[in-house]
């Protein structure tokens, strides 16, 4: 049984179609990478999966016991204001809110989760600092830690490494892999880094003029990846 399935999904803004008749599904514990050129609708698809924008037609269903509040999300761009007074701790903890339901305060277990994710993403040093005073990459990690707090079954990452330095990028990939392999969390990641996608992911969804969905081996053979991989093929 798949945890996420898209059936004949059409997406668009104000009547303009961006994605049409998309079909794919992911199983529990999958690592799916979404690739495609700028403007091909990757972020739009992620938002549709999260229910943030309506579908023009088709159906996206989550199954296998994955509930709406068990999905973590790392946005590509956030609407967070520059002058918002919030500490790193407050922000990471707010990732647990979806699971808290109507309960007014955070439980010990939730605080523990937040603590662990701060540890994992290497931001312990500025736990008490103000978010707006951090660098772009540091902010990215804070938001990742928040996404991990919400991700009890599945996590959707929209270009998680775009603001990171090479070392942090490698660490981030390692972290995501560990999350996927050890904690059995389904990962859906948008990335332009196809080399890394081919290295880590199980399945690849390529959006754009030609749409491709399949395992990474099929992807490399298919030639859809041409121009996205160094030399058009995997090393």
């Amino acid at each position, binding site marked *: 049984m798949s945890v996420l399935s898209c059936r004949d999904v059409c997406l668009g803004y104000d009547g303009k179609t961006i994605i049409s008749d998309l079909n794919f599904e992911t199983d529990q514990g999958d690592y799916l990478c979404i690739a495609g050129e700028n403007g091909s609708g990757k972020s739009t698809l992620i938002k549709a999966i*999260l*229910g*943030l924008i309506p579908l023009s037609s088709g159906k996206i269903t989550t199954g296998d016991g994955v*509930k*709406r*509040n*068990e*999905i*973590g*999300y790392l*946005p590509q761009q*956030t*609407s*967070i*204001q520059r*002058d*918002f*007074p*919030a*500490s790193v*701790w*407050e*922000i990471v*903890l*707010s*990732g647990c*809110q*979806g*699971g*808290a339901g109507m309960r*007014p*305060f*955070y439980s010990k277990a939730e605080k523990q989760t937040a603590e662990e994710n701060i540890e994992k993403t290497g931001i312990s040093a500025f736990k008490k*600092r*103000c978010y707006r*005073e951090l660098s772009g990459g540091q902010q990215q990690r804070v938001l990742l830690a*928040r996404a991990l707090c*919400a991700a009890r079954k599945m996590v*959707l990452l929209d270009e998680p490494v775009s603001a990171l330095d090479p070392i942090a990028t490698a660490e981030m990939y390692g972290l995501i892999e560990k999350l996927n392999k050890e904690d059995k969390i389904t990962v859906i990641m948008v990335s332009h880094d196809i080399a890394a996608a081919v290295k880590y992911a199980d399945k690849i969804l390529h959006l754009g003029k030609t749409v491709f969905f399949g395992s990474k081996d099929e992807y490399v053979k298919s030639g859809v990846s041409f121009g996205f991989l160094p030399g058009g093929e995997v090393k």
Partner: protein
Amino acid sequence: MTEFISKLSLYLQYPFVRYALIVGVLIALCSSLLGVTLVLKRYSFIGDGLSHVAFGAMAIAAVLNLTNNMPLVLAVTVVCAVLLLRTGENAKIKGDAAIAMISVGALAIGYLLMNVFSKSSNLSGDVCTTLFGSTSILTLGKTEVVLCCALSALVIIVFMFFYNKIFCVTFDETFARASGVKAGLYNLIIAVVTAVIIVLAMNLVGSLLISALVIFPALSAMRVFKSFRSVTVCSAVLSVFCALSGMLISIMAGTPVGSTVVAVDIAAFAVFSLISLIKRGIAK
């Protein structure tokens, strides 16, 4: 100093002075609690906008010859607050423009109604009183004080109960929705509580100066503090302090209550700005 204290204790013997102090402090506390959220949601002017709506509703109540206009005013204001704060990501008219529209519209229609239908000869005086709330806080009766206490208690409890959710929705509404938080519901709660506070606050400073109560403590606190919790606590404490000292000064010096409170708020903002400058200077 002894003269000051004896004068103060003399005034405090009057129940209407005690009522005014209690109500003033409660309103200052409530409006500062939500002030942080409203300023951060880019709704700084919602106080102004909603108070104009309340003014419009009062005009309607006056035209209809209602003796107790509170329920009507509250209902109309709540509906408008919900409409304003509901917007979210897909809104075609964003925060500031929507508030400006509703505010100007309600003010114009309210004045028009009063002008066309009012039997009172002192129209400009009436309008002035509603807008500036010049003396009404000193004329509160016991029932109004009890009502105000009950509503404030309700607001404070709701705020504490939903504190974490309010933070979540204010900080990043998109993420909140994505992670399964009922952002719509919490926005609705924020809107209703905001409307209640504003209708309450109209008794203290009148419509035109409500924004000051919402904005100043929050902005002052944001100059110095860096986390949501510390900003919220600081703005609540600051707001109560300013309201209390402002009212005492106005009673002693015979100045208008609302304007004096706001003047103290402005002074506090100046002090906090100075502190933040000094802090930054030290950090360098």
